[in-house]
Every structure is written in C-alpha cells, then in structure tokens.
C-alpha cells in the first residue's frame, strides 16, 4: 500500500471529525476548521448530528463550509436548516445545557485549557498584534458541557499561561474555579487536538494531559513544541491517520478551494514503513 499525504489543517479536521458523536449536539465556531470537522462527520458517520452556529442557524445542511463568505449562493450555509433562530436563543439554549460540545480554534491555549484569541505581545492597552476578540468563543467555552479546542502544535501556541484569557478553561486550576466565577457546574475543556497529538485534562488537577500521539510524531517532538510540561497518560495511545475517504471528501466537497484545508505544512504517512 502506498502512502498518503495531507496538511496540518486536514489532519486536525479529520481528528476532530472522529470525535463527533451522532447523538450529541455541537456549538461550532462559524467558519474554518471547527465547522469543517462537523461537516466531515456529517458526511461520514454522523449524518444527522445536531450543530448550531452563533447567528442562530440550527442543523443546516450546507452545501459548502464557508459560512461567512460563500462563493456562490449566500443562502448556502443556512440551507435546509431545522430552525433559523437568533444569537440570544443560541446562548439561552446553551445556558440550559442543550449543547454538549463546543468546537473552537485559538491563538494560544494554556495548561488549564484557557484560550486567547484577543492579542499577542505587549499588553492589553498596547498590544503588538491585535486580533478580533472573543466573538462567540467565550459563551461556547463557558456554557457547553465540554469544549474541543483546535491548536497546531507550536511552542508559542501551547503556553504555560496565555497572555489574555479570552475564553475560560479551568482558569487557575483550583477546585471549582469555574463555578466560583459564575460559570455552569460540570463544564470545561475536554480535548485539545493538534497536528501531532491529542490532549485531555486531568480530573483532579485540571492540567492538560497528553493522551495520544500521531504516527508521525514522537513524545520528545511534541514536548519541544510546548511551553509547559503536560501530564502524560500511561499508556499513550496512537491517534489514527486520516483516511483516504476523509481526505477525498474534504478536498472535493467541503473545501474545494483549498483555502482552509491547504494551510500548514504537509505530512506524509506510509503505513507500510
């Protein structure tokens, strides 16, 4: 059998798609890799999975993944939805516990799963590089039962402490830190998926814990791309590579332009080697 090759973005989308369960509900960031992960799962093992985006669209059957700037009909991302509600309704439903998982990307994530999407460098008053802000991520990370975070494996991205907590993880990791801040009981980060590994969080300490390595990464290589030492599961699992079917659907149906899935470096994987 010959090998396959794929980008960082393609692997992350496939790995998150593998986490999608058909009988759970997902509040998904409105564009890019989080939305594509759910669309890929819909196309394969979870055709009727419930997912919502923050403008109030409930379980559409979109024809492309570009929710913000569709190339064709502007109505395509909202096509054949179950309901067209509004932003407040999405937050209300989430506050009541209807949404099991949030799916988010970020600029930085830290050892307690706090994420930054506001600025890099400098300080809040004088940021070196300012980004768009919380968007819908704060409400998603606060109120979904579990949060899945997408973050490429880079030392500057996996920080001991993020510069700015745009959206809460386990905060300082102390017991009931989220509850004391007014957040719903029993919520928090669940998985962090990178292009080299998958992480979870320790139930006691709330610290990030390495659960699985991809076949193309070693433990040392992952640790070199982190600003802190994660807990390490025993035994470490191996994360499966993308399947050819997943890659074909991503490239031919979900993002035929390649604008999102073409990002990042390429990996080659040959199971025979």
């Amino acid at each position, binding site marked *: 059998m010959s090998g396959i090759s794929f980008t960082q973005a393609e692997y992350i989308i496939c790995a998150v798609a593998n986490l999608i369960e058909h009988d759970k509900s997902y509040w998904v960031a409105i564009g890019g890799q989080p939305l594509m992960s759910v669309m890929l799962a819909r196309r394969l093992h979870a055709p009727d999975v419930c997912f919502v985006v923050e403008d109030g669209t409930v379980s559409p059957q979109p024809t492309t993944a570009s929710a913000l700037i569709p190339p064709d009909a502007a109505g395509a991302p909202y096509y054949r939805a179950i309901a*067209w509600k509004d932003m*407040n309704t999405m*937050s209300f439903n989430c506050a009541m516990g209807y949404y099991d998982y949030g799916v988010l990307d970020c600029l930085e994530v830290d050892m307690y799963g706090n994420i930054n999407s506001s600025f890099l460098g400098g300080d809040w008053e004088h*940021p070196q590089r300012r980004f768009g802000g*919380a968007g819908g991520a704060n409400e998603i990370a606060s109120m979904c039962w579990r949060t899945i975070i997408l973050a490429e494996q880079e030392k500057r991205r996996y920080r001991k402490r993020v510069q700015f*907590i745009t959206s809460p993880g386990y905060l300082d990791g102390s017991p009931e830190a989220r*509850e004391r801040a*007014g957040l719903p009981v029993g919520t928090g980060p669940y998985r962090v998926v990178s292009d080299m590994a998958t992480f979870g969080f320790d139930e006691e300490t709330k610290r990030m814990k390495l659960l699985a390595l991809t076949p193309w990464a070693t433990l040392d290589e992952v640790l070199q791309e982190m600003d802190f030492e994660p807990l390490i599961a025993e035994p470490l699992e191996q994360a499966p590579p993308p399947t050819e079917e997943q890659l074909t659907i991503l490239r031919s149906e979900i993002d035929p332009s390649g604008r999102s899935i073409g990002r990042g470096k390429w990996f080659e994987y040959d199971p025979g080697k």
Partner: protein
Amino acid sequence: MEVLASGTGSYRMPDPDGHREWVRTHKSRELKSKVMSAREAVERFVGDGDYLGYDLCMVRRGPVALYREIIRQRKRNLWLAVRFSLLDPALFIAGECVEGIDIGWFSPGTTSRAIEQGKIKYSEWSNSAMVYRQLAGAMGLPFLPLRYLGGSDVFQRSGTKLVRDPYTSKEICIIPALNLDVALVHVYQCDEYGNARVFGPGLSPMETASCARKLIISTEEIVSNEEIRRQPHLTTIPYYMVDAVVHAPFGSYPGSMPGLYGIDTDAIAETAVADRAGTLGEYLEKWVYGFESDEEMLDKLVGAKKLIALQRKETIKEGYQA
C-alpha cells in the same frame, strides 16, 4: 446584592427611566409615512458622538448603504457595538467616524491597527454579551444575569460584575443594559410606516431595533400596509419603534441578501485587501465620497448588469419570501 468582583472596562451607565422618557417624548405612535432618503435619515437621526449599532454585518444583510451615507456625511466620535462584524468597524474607522468600540468580534486589519496605535478606545465583551446587553435595554431593564464571561480577562476589561445571587446565594455574573442612540437594520420588506420583515437566521434584528433611541430601517422593498396585515406573523419590527424608512434596493451591497442576491466577491475582496493594506481611505474615495448617494454609486460604479448577475447567483430562495 453583594458585588464580589467588577470589571474595569468602560460602559454607558444604564438609564431605563431616561430611555422611557425618550420613548414617551420622541417616538411617534402615529401611523404616518416615514419614508425618506438615506441622506435625510442620517442627517436627522445620526449625531456626532452617538452610540451606534447595526444588525448582522457587511457580508450578509448588513445596512451597508447606511454605513456609506454616515461616512459620506463625515459623522464624528461615534461609539460602535462591534459584534459579529467583519470589515464594518474598519470602514467607519477609515472614515474617521469612530471614538471607540465595544468588541464582540471584528476581522483583523484596520481595526487592529487603530487599537495597536492607540487611535480608538475599546472595551472587551463577546458577541452574545453585546446582543444580550441590547436585550436588557430592549426589556427596559438596567441589567441581566448571565452564565458566561466570568473568570476570563474579558470580564476584567468589560463592565461585567460578579455578584451573589440573592435567591440561591451562588455566584453569577451580571452585565449592564445597552440602549443604543441609533440602530441601523436592513430588512427584506417594510411598509411606509416602518413595519418590517426580516427573513433568514436572525442574529439580533429585534434586540438591535428595540433597544435604540433612534432606528433607521433600510429595506430592499416597500410593501403595502395591507400586505403586512395579511401575514402579521411575519412582522419582525413594529412601526412605532421606527424613525426612518429608507428604500435601499441592494442596500447590503457588496454583501449579500440571502434569497435575493449574492455577495460581490470581487468588491468584498477589494475591501478586504484595502483593509489589510491600510488603504481604506482611498477605497472610500472611490466607493463613497465620489458620489452624492448610494443610488448614484450603484448606477455608475457597479451597474445594472453586475447587480442582475448577483441576483442570478442567488439560487437558494426557500425561506426568504413572504
């Protein structure tokens, strides 16, 4: 109610009774025509220093024709409710209209640079928090409790407070109501009095419209009051909240109006490139200042042929018609 922690961000002090008094003295309950040009609506209802909000954003059902008129009239020192936005604040910043913004989300570019260079003031919120503040304003309340923002640095840089719930004694966040000075909402259909219909995923047309002191509706189509009364379940915004009705076909251009027309991909790309390159000033010369009105711009710069092509591109119609 015991206050356990307070964010340090700036916010406008809620004033429900002041808003009631405004509604009593300024909002007409008379069923009278409010149809006027964009120029007249902006001259009469947008003031320097106003706090301005809009529904949706530049690529979808945004009130972009009204943005251009505000920029054309060189309004100054506006505060913007920047949630679920893309290039929207960048256009106003490039037009030198902006004193400050409340951040839900914007696309990085000109707006980022204005922050990095200390040219505008800002506070942090989130998309939902901003529409929830508008809901509180639309309910006539001073604040509402919520289950997010707590624990984050967004909390610290906003006007959110952590309090002890007087009923359960547990911690809960509260946020201050927001009553906009002026709201802009672009709709599918509206009668001459302002009874307006919005189709498609909503975001926040009702909260945005009803929390505002002054409300300008721009509409793709003006329909009769008889038509409104035939299907009252389709009325999103009732007339008594509306101060001006502007007939603005292609009012969301270069963005889309799902079901009616698609985005002008080239024109959006031109905007995005100018945003990144810091050349939105020249962009505004070309698209805004060089014309007396949006009608003139659509006629001379875009042209009927292009507009018809945008209509043809919008093949999905289900759900966007009365």
